Structures are given as C-alpha cells and as structure tokens.
C-alpha cells in the first residue's frame, strides 16, 4: 500500500477549491488586483482560508516523524532572498495581471476549453521550457 491514490485525490480537491473560490474566473482575479478601481477582496479570503489550514497542517508535521507514505518532509524554507526570486515573482505578477490566470486555474480550466486558456497553457509551458533551457541546464553549481 503506497498511497498513490492520494495524489489524485489531492489534485481533485485542489481543482474543486480553485473553482469554488472563483480563481478560474480571470475577471475576478483582475478585480482583486484592481486596487484603484472597483476592488473585489475575495482573493484575500481564498488565500486567508488556504494559508490558515496549511499553517495548521505544517505545524502538525513537526509532531510526525515522517509523512504517512514517504520518507521525509520537505526541507525547511530558505531565507535567502536573491535576484532570481525578485525578478521571477515580478515577471509572474505581470503575466498574472495581464491575463488573470496563474498555473493552477489555467490547468483546471482546460476541460472547459475556453480559447483564452487554450492559448495560455501552451505559452506557459513554453515559458517554463525556456527557463529550463536558459537557466536550469546551464547551472553547473547549485545556485
């Protein structure tokens, strides 16, 4: 029993959460980012709810020796803030602001087949591939 079904279950629950939260509606995301206009704070509630639950789970893992089906929990988060983090987050934010889409909602929306998603997802994959070719494969030391 290696518990692999839980990967699928987690993905399914994630998709339900994204749809219910409104994150699959790009206009709703744009309304959250539109602080100067008619601001919709709903996304704050999405993140607040998600972070609160995850924070509790994260604390719980300190009392567990290991995950149920794996050998170890993830490494503690690094604290070093570098140019890649800042630039990467900045670029991601611009793309998110331009489209109202980020990776999770875009993937969940594939099933509905809207043209905006069908253009966005391949472009996103291309952007990821570009990073892999330009940055990851060139790295000779751990950066």
């Amino acid at each position, binding site marked *: 029993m290696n518990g692999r079904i839980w990967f699928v279950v987690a993905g399914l629950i*994630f998709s339900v959460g994204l749809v219910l939260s409104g994150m699959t509606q790009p206009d709703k995301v744009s309304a959250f980012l539109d602080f100067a*206009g008619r601001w919709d704070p709903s996304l704050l509630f999405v993140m607040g709810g998600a972070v609160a639950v995850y924070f509790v789970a994260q604390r719980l893992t300190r009392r567990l020796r290991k995950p149920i089906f794996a050998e170890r929990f993830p490494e503690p988060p690094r604290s070093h803030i570098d140019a890649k983090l800042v630039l990467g987050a900045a670029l*991601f934010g611009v793309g998110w602001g331009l489209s109202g889409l980020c990776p999770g909602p875009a*993937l969940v929306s*594939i099933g509905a087949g809207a043209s905006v998603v069908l253009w966005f997802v391949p472009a996103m994959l291309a952007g990821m591939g570009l990073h892999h070719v330009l940055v990851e494969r060139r790295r000779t030391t751990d950066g």
Partner: protein
Amino acid sequence: MFTPYSSLAGGILIGLSASLLLITHGRIAGISGVLGGTLAGRDLGWRILFLVGLVGGGVLFALIRPQSFPTSHAYSTVGVIAAGLLVGFGTRLGNGCTSGHGVCGIGRVSPRSIVATLIFIATGAATVYVARHVLS
C-alpha cells in the same frame, strides 16, 4: 462581485488539498513546481497523478457546472500568449506561484515566499492599473 463565503470555502479546500499532499507524501502543492518538475522529467510518477486529479477535476466541472468557467474574454491573443510566457518563465525563475509561495510558502512562514507573494501581487496590481486606468 464580492463572494466571501465561496471564496473562503474554496480557499479552505485548497489548503486541505495541500495539507493532504504534505502529510501523505511530504510534497509541496505548488502548481508551477509540479509542472516545472514534470517538464524537466523529475519524479514523474506522483506529479502526473496529481495533475490527472487537477485537470480531471476541471473536466468534470466543465461537464456538470460549465458556468464556473468564462466563455468570452477581453484579452487579445497576443496579450494572452505574452502573459503565458511571463507566467511560465517567471514562476520557474522565482520558484513558485500563488499556490507554491502564496499558500504553502506563507503557511510555512517562509521569508522568501512572503517577499515573492508581495512582489507578484504588486506587479500584478501595477499591470492591471496600467491596463485599466492608463491605457484605456
């Protein structure tokens, strides 16, 4: 339209999903990381299973509740492609997105994730401001 209850409920489910992934298998539910690792061919087994659930859930929703997804949009095709490229490249460069940094990272009280989240919300807001209040 402000939707506090469904947004909170959705957020709680997102948190539960990420918690489930963490406690069962010690993995982080950062979608950009899951995708990026898949493209790089790392640990394909669990990533593909998770993506099957994620995309499959969307397919099911499209069948039973199609109004959850937009049918039309105001975005130009060039703009959407540029946005996709920026999201894809930026999330890999910054090592996270709204779920990876915004949920899991902040949930772990990670300084990197808190900074990243503030930055992408700021540049996102700046982009929307320019698009809505300057250019149009």
